[in-house]
């Protein structure tokens, strides 16, 4: 397990991290969310020792992360970069060796990943000759070549087309299923909601919300309530408590209610009033929770 424990980092007068804490669990995908400049990249760099925090610790398996641990980590930085003139397979092989693989193992893994990502026929091409999307794939392979136990990806989905997004999501799911702890940052909140088991929301250098997606949503103090009749004319009972706001469009009713509202009573009242076509009761989306947390 990766434990980010109370990190502080200041650049001059600007505080990049101010008490950032969360954990990434093996076998689970964690979406790291936050507005631009909230401290996501700084946190990720701290995992790899690229940033020395002023205070706080980064622990892996209960011990401070060391050089040998990092050999088993995979990293895809926000600023993508590979050697433009180096052949794709050579490049991956080199990065595999830097992670402690033997030459032949690294070579085999490089070719396997290129095959997996649909680039088998481009293995001998210089990276600069590949399209932007294909360079992204090589960059992903670079982070995965050594079967890392922890995968840290800074904005892995930015700039990908829908097919690229699907491939990336599939690979991340697969790595988590294989037991890796996966941490990635993203601004695509719907995607994170679909894909991730856990989220951590960082705001002004501090994690303001962290936990599993289900828990966080359940813990929200509000719910959406939406129902639709075949005929218009329904009125909400005056006695219903916990309604924050409501709007009616013909035979459709949308309500924002407190989470302690008596849903059964609402449903019973509606059933008695007429024929119901649709009845939805859900916690807010991750986007709403995010906006509420950082607003």
């Amino acid at each position: 397990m990766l434990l980010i424990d109370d990190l502080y980092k200041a650049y001059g007068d600007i505080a990049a991290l101010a008490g950032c804490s969360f954990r990434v669990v093996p076998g689970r995908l964690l979406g790291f969310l936050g507005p631009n400049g909230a401290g996501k990249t700084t946190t990720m760099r701290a995992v790899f020792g690229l940033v020395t925090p002023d205070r706080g610790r980064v622990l892996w398996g209960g011990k401070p992360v060391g050089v040998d641990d990092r050999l088993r980590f995979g990293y895809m930085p926000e600023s993508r970069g590979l050697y433009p003139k180096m052949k794709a397979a050579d490049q991956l092989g080199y990065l595999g060796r830097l992670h402690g693989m033997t030459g032949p193992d690294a070579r085999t893994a490089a070719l396997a990943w290129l095959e997996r990502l649909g680039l088998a026929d481009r293995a001998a091409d210089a990276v600069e000759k590949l399209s932007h999307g294909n360079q992204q794939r090589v960059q992903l392979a670079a982070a995965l070549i050594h079967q890392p136990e922890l995968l840290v990806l800074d904005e892995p989905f930015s700039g990908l087309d829908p097919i690229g997004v699907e491939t990336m999501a599939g690979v991340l799911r697969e790595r988590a299923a294989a037991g890796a702890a996966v941490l990635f940052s993203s601004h695509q909140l719907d995607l994170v909601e679909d894909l991730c088991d856990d989220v951590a929301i960082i705001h002004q250098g501090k994690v303001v919300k962290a936990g599993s997606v289900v828990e966080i949503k359940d813990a929200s103090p509000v719910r959406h309530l939406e129902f639709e009749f075949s005929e218009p004319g329904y009125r909400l009972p005056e006695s219903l408590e916990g309604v924050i706001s409501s709007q009616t469009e013909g035979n459709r009713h949308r309500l924002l209610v407190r989470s302690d509202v008596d849903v059964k009573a609402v449903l019973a009242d509606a059933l008695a009033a007429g024929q119901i076509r649709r009845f939805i009761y859900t916690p807010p989306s991750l986007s709403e929770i995010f906006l509420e947390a950082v607003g």
Partner: protein
Amino acid sequence: MRGLNGLLLVAKRELRERGRSKAFLISSAVTLVLVVAAIVLPQILGGGPTTYQIGVIGEGNTEIITALSDLAAAEVAAAGEGEPDVFETVEFPDRPTASSSLAEGDVDMVLIDGTVLLRPTETFGDSSLAGRLQQAAGSVRLQRLVEENGQAAADVIGILSSNPLEEESLRGGEGDGTRPMIAYAGLLLMYIAILSYGAWTLTGVTEEKNNRVVEVLLATLRPWQLLGGKVLGIGLLGIIQFSLTVAAAYVVIRVTGFIEVPDLPVGALVSLVGWFVLGYAVYAVSYAAAGSLTSRPEDAQSASFPLTMLAVAGFFVSIEALNNPDSTLARVTSFIPFTAPFVVPIRQALSAIGPFEHLATVLAVLMSIVFLVRGAARIYAGGLLRFGGRVKLREAWRSARL
């Protein structure tokens, strides 16, 4: 990756990728061609004996021309190689016709009655021919003088064409000028090599920063491994290119026999190679640190300008040391890492540095390299992950993770 393994992997990649790159192969080929051409062309174009056309009017010129040829033959005999210059005469009936031929350039000079030498202009053009004619005329007069005393004419010419004084230098041994010559040639080569290969580390580091691959690398490598591996890999490649060029030059010289190679003193050679390695280490490490301060290749030159100035200063100090190997300047700069690689080999070639002082300078420079590597690694570490504009040296130093 731990310790030296990481460094060696980086060095190996530099060797492989850079060694296979078109830029390297082309620059190697061009250097080879240039060096071979520099040896062969002057010999083909300017080598061999020169033929002079000398106009003559009246009597008394033949003896001078004969003496001129004899002197040329004697010079060649003394040198032990080559062919003597050829002097052909053209007879003119009078001065005006001779003058117009001289002005046209049909003849090089005109000799009148064995007493007057007519030159084309008053400039210093071909004064060597004039000098040789004067010498020949002098020898003819001497010859007449000694003939009256019964001496053999050949002896006189022999004495005139020889250097009767034996030259010796203050430091003992034969003052044939070979050692300073070799030291100077070696110095020039070293200066060029250190600056070019140093520039490779500069651009190599800037490129890694420019294309952002550096962040991936630093996730597993320490900055000193990346720095050290780069310097080592490029250094090995530089030594390979350099030795190939020198070997090619040597083979061409041996095969064609155009240039006489004196026997090289082994000690001076070993010292030169050793100081090349030290000098390269000093400059390459510093250049790498300078490169880490910039993200764009166009900024790299300005970031490294102070270093290039240091190398130029070192070069000039070493030329000064060639004339004055015992001066205070030469002694002091022998202990400064940026100048010592240029100055010490010169002083050694001139026997102006004792073994103990030599050892002391090597130790001093080795020690300063240790500090330089640590300092450079810190600047490198601080500069590498700061993209965009030029990073100030102080900022890089302060922000470095250690």
